[in-house]
């Protein structure tokens, strides 16, 4: 990877973070709009080793916990798990194509919401069911679509190889 590619990679991640705090509020409801911060983490984990991915997930989760103190620590745990598992499974199982990466974004978002809901212990019964079976899949889908668009537009700069399969 060339040095300029490395800079572009981080610029794109930074742009996703900025999108999270700027335009995300204009993209529909809070529960359905794509989660750009998680998307940045998942894109990072595609290239990084599982250890740094877990560390990045922990930091992202801890910062989110500071914004939603109802379940402090739950976000850190959830993002750590998602970061590590995403990086590990990407290396072990997944092929390099756009659809598979979209599935990774979908599963990562849904698993993050599942882990937050379970670890926080604040959602139970019907509320948990609605969250996991209705709202989380919708948010996962929008996040996956946003992720696929980012990879399609900038995959070359992210140094992520995408096959036609």
């Amino acid at each position, binding site marked *: 990877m060339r040095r300029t590619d490395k800079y572009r990679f981080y610029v794109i991640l930074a742009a996703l*973070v900025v999108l*999270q*705090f*700027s*335009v995300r*509020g*204009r993209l529909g409801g*809070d*529960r359905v709009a794509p*989660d750009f911060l998680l998307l940045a983490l998942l894109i990072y984990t595609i*290239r990084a*080793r*599982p*250890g*740094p991915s*877990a*560390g990045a997930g*922990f930091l992202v*989760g*801890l*910062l*989110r*916990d*500071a*914004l*939603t*103190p*109802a*379940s*402090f*620590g*739950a*976000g*850190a*745990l959830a993002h*750590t798990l998602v970061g*590590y598992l995403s*990086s*590990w499974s990407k*290396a*072990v199982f997944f092929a*390099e194509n756009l659809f598979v990466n979209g599935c990774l974004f979908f599963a990562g978002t849904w698993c993050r*919401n599942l882990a*937050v*809901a379970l*670890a*926080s212990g*604040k*959602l*139970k*019964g*019907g*509320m*948990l069911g*609605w*969250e996991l079976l209705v*709202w*989380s899949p919708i*948010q996962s889908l929008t996040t996956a679509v946003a992720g696929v668009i980012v990879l399609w537009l900038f995959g070359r700069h992210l140094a992520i*190889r995408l096959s036609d399969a």
Partner: protein
Amino acid sequence: MALGADRYASRGDTFAFLGCVLLSVAAMSLPERIRDPLARGLRQTVLAPFLALQQQTELLSASLERYDAVVAQRDSAALAATFLPELRGENTRLRALLGLGQRLSSGYVPAEVLREPEPTGALTFLVSAGKKQGVRPLAAVVSPDGLVGIVSSVDAKTSVVVTWAHPEFRASAMATDGSVYGIVGPHGSDGPHVWLLELQGVPYRQLVPTGTMILTSGLGGVLPRGIPIGTVVSVAGQAEGWERTYLIRPAVHPGAVTHVMILTGPPVRGDLRSLFESSGETP
């Protein structure tokens, strides 16, 4: 950077992962006196520029909406000016719609809700007003329709609001006529009654008719008296001829509010219900 078999988790990766998990679990078990300053520190340092960006975006968004509204009002005014009596009538109606803010006079701070996409986002959220605007912990957070929650902790420019949907939220409440008192809390998270409140501790002999408005009672001195909480929809249960619990349809859904008012004035001795009754009127 090529992907390949060398990227399987090494021992170092596993240790890093386990370390992060342990730190997360430790964060979850932190006591409130450590957790809150830590969260506040993160909000005031690392997250401060992002929160400022989010706040500016919300302001910009609100400004654009206001601009559209102003243009529409200007066009309406130009049209209405040709019909002076109708203009006077509309003026009267607009005066009636001036809203809760003016009736509360100086005892409130308006704030935008800064939402996060996590599942617990309706239980607590950040608002764009803090210590600099005069917000204090335990201040009541309201919308023109009624009670949203209370301020949990305050930073320089932002505050954390615990909504009525939070499992630990409780408020002393009463019926409109003051005949029945009880404690209001979230009904729970299961079944068809998700996002309802319940009025607990009502003596068995005191019946509360369906449709009765429930207000804050002011007992305890945290919330002012007379803020609408919701409307009784049915009896949720009763305990051995001892007390009844009533289901309440909330006046405000915390997931739907985008702007709130934080009551910051001196403790109100009177009753606020007239302010909210006026805001519910239609011209």
